[in-house]
């Protein structure tokens, strides 16, 4: 039954419960649904910040700052290295997700995924300090401010993912590993978009 037909049901006309299966037989796990709902929250928070970023980028001309106070930030190699680490992390989780065969391989992949996530975060911190030392500190310029803000929100979400990683290590379950992998992929996807945005502007 599609959602629309479900919402059009004239529920007073059809009392009874025959034909209804036991919910446990057909419903996906609540945790999965909860994560999907949270994806919507993530989408909104990143979209709004990006919208503010784009608005601010275009604003300097309207405000008549002749030279434009928006100065794009340089792209050190570390930025690419970090992105690669995050990609590896995602691959590790994907291996774990698909690992039907051997539990020990799954376990290694999970550990690798989490550790690579930690490596990414450390790399991000290093990137921040690199920019800061080079003079691109938070308040110098709106482009900088948005960079730090967007990477901070992304990083916080990754930390949340690491909390889930610890739980999965303690209590490994294929369904939880699948959800972690999905979450990691979403963070990778967002990172690609963010990095692309930051690099192109």
């Amino acid at each position, binding site marked *: 039954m599609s959602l629309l037909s479900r919402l059009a049901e004239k*529920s007073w006309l059809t009392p009874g*419960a025959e034909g209804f299966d036991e919910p446990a037989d057909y419903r996906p*796990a609540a945790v999965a649904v909860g994560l999907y709902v949270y994806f919507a929250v993530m989408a909104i928070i990143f979209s709004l910040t990006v919208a503010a970023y784009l608005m601010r980028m275009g604003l300097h001309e309207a405000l008549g700052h002749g030279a434009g106070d928006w100065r794009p930030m340089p792209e050190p190699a570390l930025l690419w290295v970090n992105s690669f680490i995050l990609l590896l992390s995602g691959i590790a989780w994907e291996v774990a997700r698909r690992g039907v065969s051997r539990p020990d391989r799954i376990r290694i992949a999970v550990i690798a995924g989490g550790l690579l996530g930690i490596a990414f975060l450390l790399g991000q911190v290093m990137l921040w300090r690199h920019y800061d030392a080079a003079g691109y500190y938070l308040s110098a310029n709106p482009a900088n401010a948005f960079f730090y803000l967007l990477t901070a929100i992304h990083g916080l979400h990754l930390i949340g993912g690491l909390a889930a990683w610890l739980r999965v290590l303690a209590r490994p379950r294929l369904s939880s590993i699948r959800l972690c992998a999905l979450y990691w992929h979403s963070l990778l996807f967002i990172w690609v978009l963010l990095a692309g945005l930051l690099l192109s502007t």
Partner: protein
Amino acid sequence: MATTIADDLRPLHHPKTWIGKYVWSQDHKVIAIQYGVTAIGIGLVALVLSALMRLQLGFPGMFPSIQPENYLQYVSMHGMIMVVYLLTALLLGGFGNYLIPLMVGARDMVFPFVNMLSYWVYLLSVLVLVASFFVPGGPTGAGWTLYPPQAITEGTPGQEWGILLMLASLAIFIIAFTMGGLNYVTTVLQARTKGMTLMRMPCSVWGIFVASIMGLLAFPALFVAAVMMMLDHVAGTSFFMPALLSMGQPLDHEGGSPILFQHLFWFFGHPEVYIVALPAFGIVSDLISVHARKNIFGYRMMVWAIVIIGALSFVVWAHHMYVSGMNPYFGFFFATSTLIIAIPTAIKVYNWLLTLWRGDIHLRVPMLFAIAFLFTFIHGGLTGLFLGNVSVDVPLSDTFFVVGHFHMVMGVSPILVIFGAIYHWYPKITGRMWNNVLAQAHFWITFLGVYAIYLPMHYLGVLGVPRRYYALGETAFIPQSAHVANEVITVAALIVFVAQGLFFYNMIWSLFRGPKAGPNPWGAASLEWQTPDTPPKHGNWGAKLPTVYRWAYDYSVPGHARDFIAQDEAPS
């Protein structure tokens, strides 16, 4: 194969200690009470602040301890507490937590640990907010809207520390709310018992469900705005701060946009008022239907209207910004979208009235409050049309017309529903019945009193009396009678304020001395009244989950002797 609360395969963990049962409880009913008590507690603080505001407005100059800084702080804290920490927390955290599992036939919320956590994080956000009263400079006085640049520059109270604690508290609240919202939404989607289709759920669940989804999508905007303002204040960024002076001295900001904050804030702020209104709409549908012994008229349309209003509420936000200096051509779009949203809202009003029509109306106190809701919401909704229509809004914006309008639709109507709801579900929550005489007295004084407070305000607004003014002073276009009006409004407000004592006394006294109520004193059909125990025990349904055979509104069905059929009663 699922293994969560929703499928009843993993048994609930029953706590053994008193602390486990009533403090660190994962039982949605206990968490609901915790939310409710905390929200009402901080709401009473906001009520006292409003009394102080009214003392100043009614009798300016008579209270030397209320200076302009204090007045603006009262205004700002009153507003923020009422909208976010009372109404949102009580309607979603309080009623949402209590009602959803019971109304859909679940044992508890799907993530009980996260649910418990959400309450304690909410409590933390309240404590951080209260802390802002005690920091140097006191709490923020920037208005509940917290507009930059003034919120963080000199000349506004609390611009150094108060605003920081406010923003931090909001960020913490949003984290709590996200945890709670995930629970409410996922529970409705995943934990409905067998036979409980979406369209068999009562309107209360629909209202809270849609409001929770909206909250998950709207609060991030406030979160982002709050973080950006914090950075502007402490880290010297210029998200919202243009080049500007403060008290004649240039500040080290440049290029930011105050209007960007307003867009972010109202992208949250407008859905927020519907996050408060939709649960009230859903609940009042159930109050009217139970006490008129009649199905809610046009149930399908009521559900669709809730969904449509929820969706449309995301595209009307800039009607709060008509005179903000944003691109004036936006006014055409937002006036149109705002007036369109009035249509499903009007349908809901018609359907509530049509539920009363040809009903069998028992004028018990919950029904009285529902009727009072209708009267005041019709008024408040109609005045919204003035403000939504861009050109009509121009003279009225930032006047007392706005204050009258938003109190009517936010401060009066949903509060009346909350009172009605508490009286209605009190026997289920406590197993006891309240005192009818006290309840009637509470109703009449509150209903007539709040109308007397807010009706005149609209007229002062049309005259042009501005809001957020510490004192009107000697102003030629404001006649002496307007000052008298302010005095009368203040007296009415103080009377209503004191009369709430009747409510609290009744609720607490009846808890210990009230007569025992049966499991279903109103003869309601919805599932929450069919629990094996009253008050419901942990796990709600005893050994086996109920099966639902019908929608929630089989009242006065022809051919049945009793005037209601419970949702879990099988067809014969």
